[in-house]
């Protein structure tokens, strides 16, 4: 017997260690909030392209330096650039700061064929303002500026005339790299963080030592949010897990006053948790941080099973571990079934983090049942029996008894419950995924400053274009550009910098036709002769990359994915013009141009799921009522279900009274309240004879469950705290109402 105990204890202790050493290499923790809410989002070619685009941005780092003068900023930038170059955490820059200075003139210095659609129109219509007398008068007049006239004139682009004069694209050092924000110059340094070194990169960035103390610096990168979120969630999950386990152990210690119970409980919890983690990471290939955080709540439910068993050991009639298990078998299995149904709902949810949570919970609790059945029974040790019967009613029992005695119509709760849930369905829930997590304040402030500095306004709206090759995608983008420009919707277009070959050929032809008149023009207006140039030529993406390696727009060219070539067009967030507001982004009939609003897509998904949860609970309670009705009679079935219904009403009402908007995590919490409420009801219902020990076990398990969910309510992640708070309130209510399952039941 002792040998068997050692064997089981060794398995319980060693298996988690072995599993951890085996799968720790493959165990990955996902920190991306958006993918945690919708994994299937990246199922199509368009969405794969979008994911690739997001990944290309994830390690981009921008450091903004703000000071009094560009010279001192330049010196500081050189110092920081040299410092970043010396660190492995940052990839070496392939463009120096000075490369940006003449970016706007690049196209003209290289005689590249680029004309804006407006300039092409002027060429086509032969609207050469410089050939018109009125324009010439302005150019030569000392009282007017030649600038405004010349920038509109396509002749200004003809080689040998106003060469390099106009900048047809909005690519200037000012709006890309320097910005006089609040009248102070700002210098932007761009880098890429080395993959896998984001955490140490963040530490370096947070402690950058500047030479000039008058300069302030701001850093931002999508990857850093992941680091902060991971560290915040890891801190929380380790602190909360520890706190939960300590609370459970303290409860155990004060009740059982035995080291044996403490050790067995701790070892069993660790064992079941690691099995649950292994199974869910095996099924999904990863575990999301929020799933881990929510998983802490399962520790309390697992502890419930162990408590019910340990308390049964104290029963007078119990002579072996097997006996103790048999006496709790029925309520244990019924409560497991109810929990199972609740967690299956989670596992079938469209949100990956809930699926992971569901699978983790089912596997952990199933493992806990097996541990009780095959593990704990082997460690059976009869304890000094306490009085098993008596009149010492708990507070909750006295409360219910008083209600029953006064003939209060508790059954009226059923229609109220149904009406309440329908009202909840009709009420608008706040399911904006941006409100589910709390981003780091410093990073958010930095991001805001940098976005303002470089005029970066992209949000969550995009067009994704596909075609068989780059050329065709560019041609499609030019069609899109025409329509968006007409609707006054601003966006970042690749063809702004790299027009299609078709458009380039048209521009070259226009240049050439204009050049033929140049000699006569120069002679007529007595202009100084300039060197003849070789004329314009078309160019490609490779040519552009070779000259200006650091442009953001390269990322918009996503390349070949499967059989198609993809490019992406990010739209600006602020579309303040009336035309832009009236513009419907879904008007394009072309199946190769797809509008994508990531937030809208996920939020819509989450909202529809939150509706189905409310319907689901109504249907679930109805079906469960019928099953229990057949098994235990209609009145008993009602008595078992009623505490859960009341608790859901109380929990959600409390949240509403607290003034917090209801979200999907509150609704999901109601599923757990329902399952745990039934769990307590079953234990009371099957203990109709009134064992004080059973009552104690329920109180003890309520305490452990409350402690685990109460801890979650402290989380700084809004989603996790919502879930923890609603379940915490619900469980307290379940404990209060659970005695109704036997006091309101029909005695057999």
């Amino acid at each position, binding site marked *: 017997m002792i040998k068997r105990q050692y064997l089981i204890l060794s398995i319980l202790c060693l298996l988690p260690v072995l599993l951890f050493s085996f799968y720790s290499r493959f165990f990955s923790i996902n920190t991306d909030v958006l993918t945690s809410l919708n994994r299937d989002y990246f199922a199509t070619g368009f969405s794969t392209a979008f994911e690739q685009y997001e990944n290309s941005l994830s390690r981009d780092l921008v450091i903004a330096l703000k000071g009094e003068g560009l010279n001192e900023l330049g010196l500081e930038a050189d110092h920081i650039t040299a410092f970043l170059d010396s660190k492995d955490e940052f990839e070496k820059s392939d463009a120096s700061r000075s490369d940006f200075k003449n970016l706007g*003139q690049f196209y003209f210095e290289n005689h590249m064929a680029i004309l804006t659609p407006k300039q092409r129109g002027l060429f086509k219509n032969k609207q050469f303002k410089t050939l018109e007398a009125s324009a010439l008068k302005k150019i030569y*007049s000392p009282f007017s500026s030649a600038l405004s006239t010349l920038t509109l004139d396509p002749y200004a682009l003809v080689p040998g005339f106003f060469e*390099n004069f106009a900048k047809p694209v909005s690519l200037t050092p000012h709006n890309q790299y320097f910005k006089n924000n609040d009248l102070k110059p700002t210098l932007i340094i761009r880098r890429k963080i080395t993959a896998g070194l984001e955490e140490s990169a963040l530490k370096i960035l947070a402690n950058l030592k500047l030479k000039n103390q008058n300069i302030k610096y701001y850093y931002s990168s999508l990857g850093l949010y992941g680091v902060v979120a991971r560290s915040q969630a890891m801190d929380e999950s380790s602190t909360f897990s520890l706190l939960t386990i300590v609370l459970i152990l303290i409860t155990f210690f004060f009740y059982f006053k035995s080291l044996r119970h403490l050790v067995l409980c701790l070892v069993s919890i660790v064992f079941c948790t690691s099995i649950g983690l292994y199974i869910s990471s095996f099924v999904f290939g990863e575990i999301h941080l929020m799933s881990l955080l929510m998983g802490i709540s399962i520790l309390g439910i697992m502890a419930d099973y162990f408590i019910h068993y340990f308390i049964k050991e104290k029963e007078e009639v119990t002579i072996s571990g097997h006996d103790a298990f048999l006496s709790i078998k029925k309520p244990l299995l019924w409560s497991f079934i109810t929990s199972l149904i609740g967690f299956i709902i989670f596992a079938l949810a469209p949100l990956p983090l809930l699926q992971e949570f569901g699978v983790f919970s089912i596997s952990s609790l199933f493992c806990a049942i097996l541990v009780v059945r095959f593990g704990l029974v082997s460690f059976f040790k009869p304890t000094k029996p306490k009085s098993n019967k008596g009149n010492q009613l708990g507070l909750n029992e006295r409360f219910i008894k008083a209600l029953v005695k006064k003939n209060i119509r508790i059954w009226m709760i059923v229609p109220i419950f149904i009406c309440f849930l329908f009202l909840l369905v009709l009420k608008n829930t706040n399911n904006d995924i941006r409100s589910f997590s709390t981003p780091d304040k410093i990073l958010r402030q930095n991001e805001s400053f940098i976005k303002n500095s470089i005029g970066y306004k992209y949000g969550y709206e995009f067009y994704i274009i596909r075609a068989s090759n780059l050329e065709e995608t560019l041609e499609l983008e030019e069609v899109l550009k025409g329509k968006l420009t007409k609707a006054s919707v601003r966006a970042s277009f690749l063809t702004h910098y790299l027009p299609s070959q078709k458009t380039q050929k048209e521009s070259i032809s226009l240049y050439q036709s204009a050049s033929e008149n140049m000699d006569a023009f120069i002679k007529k*207006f007595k202009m100084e002769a300039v060197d003849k140039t070789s004329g314009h030529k078309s160019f490609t993406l490779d040519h552009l990359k070779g000259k200006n390696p650091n442009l953001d727009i390269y990322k918009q060219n996503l390349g070949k994915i499967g059989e198609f070539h993809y490019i992406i067009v990010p739209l600006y967030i602020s579309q303040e013009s009336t035309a832009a507001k009236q513009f419907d982004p879904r008007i394009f009939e072309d199946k190769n141009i797809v509008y994508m609003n990531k937030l809208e897509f996920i939020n819509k998904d989450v909202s529809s799921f939150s509706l189905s949860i409310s319907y689901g609970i109504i249907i679930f309670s109805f079906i469960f009522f019928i099953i229990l009705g057949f098994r235990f009679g209609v009145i008993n079935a009602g008595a078992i279900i009623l505490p859960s219904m009341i608790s859901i009403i109380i929990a959600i009402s409390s949240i509403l009274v607290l003034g917090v908007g209801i979200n999907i995590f509150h609704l999901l919490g109601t599923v757990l309240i329902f399952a745990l409420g039934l769990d307590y009801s079953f234990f009371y219902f099957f203990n109709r004879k009134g064992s004080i020990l059973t009552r104690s076990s329920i109180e003890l398990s309520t305490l452990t469950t409350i402690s685990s969910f109460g801890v979650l309510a402290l989380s700084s992640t809004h989603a996790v705290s919502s879930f923890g708070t609603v379940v915490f309130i619900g469980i307290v209510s379940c404990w209060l109402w659970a005695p109704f399952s036997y006091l309101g039941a029909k005695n057999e």
Partner: protein
Amino acid sequence: MVLNKVLITLFFLLTLSNSGYAIDKKYLSGLQFPIGTEVSYKQIRFIKSTNFKLESSGLLKVHTNKIEWHQINPFVHIITMKDGVMTSGDGNTSEEVKNPIATKMARIMFDLFQGNFLALEKVFTMKASSPGINLSLTPINKDFAGFIKGIELVGNKNVEKFYLEEKSGNSLTIKFFNFIKMKKLK
């Protein structure tokens, strides 16, 4: 001749006032092209980003109640300012210029040529430096401070050069000559 005297006086005062010091406006009242004079000019408009120079030439005529900017090359273009109204034409026909910036700009230049420094004081800070006549004007009015970096008048016995530099790096240089041929107009 009157202009010469005025400029010599001004030179004297500026020399005394040392370089970089603000000048007493009472000494500037004489700096002007006297009424009834005509002076030749050659203008070079430099556009920095093109590295291109546009040359033109013509005459500046100061009448009793109007000033005329008469461009002859590369084409005839006559701009006149009379009673605050600016007109543009080719000698046969003319039309009013309604562009407020162009009108203001013309007004400033004519104020400079007429020595109306009291009006200029509202728009510019003025400084003089030696040797010779070297008057610098920095715009304080927001309409002009946005694009004009500064204006300089350079000369010795006569105003020989007007130089305007824009913030964009573009510039306008006007050289005045043939003062000897300057004649009284009817």
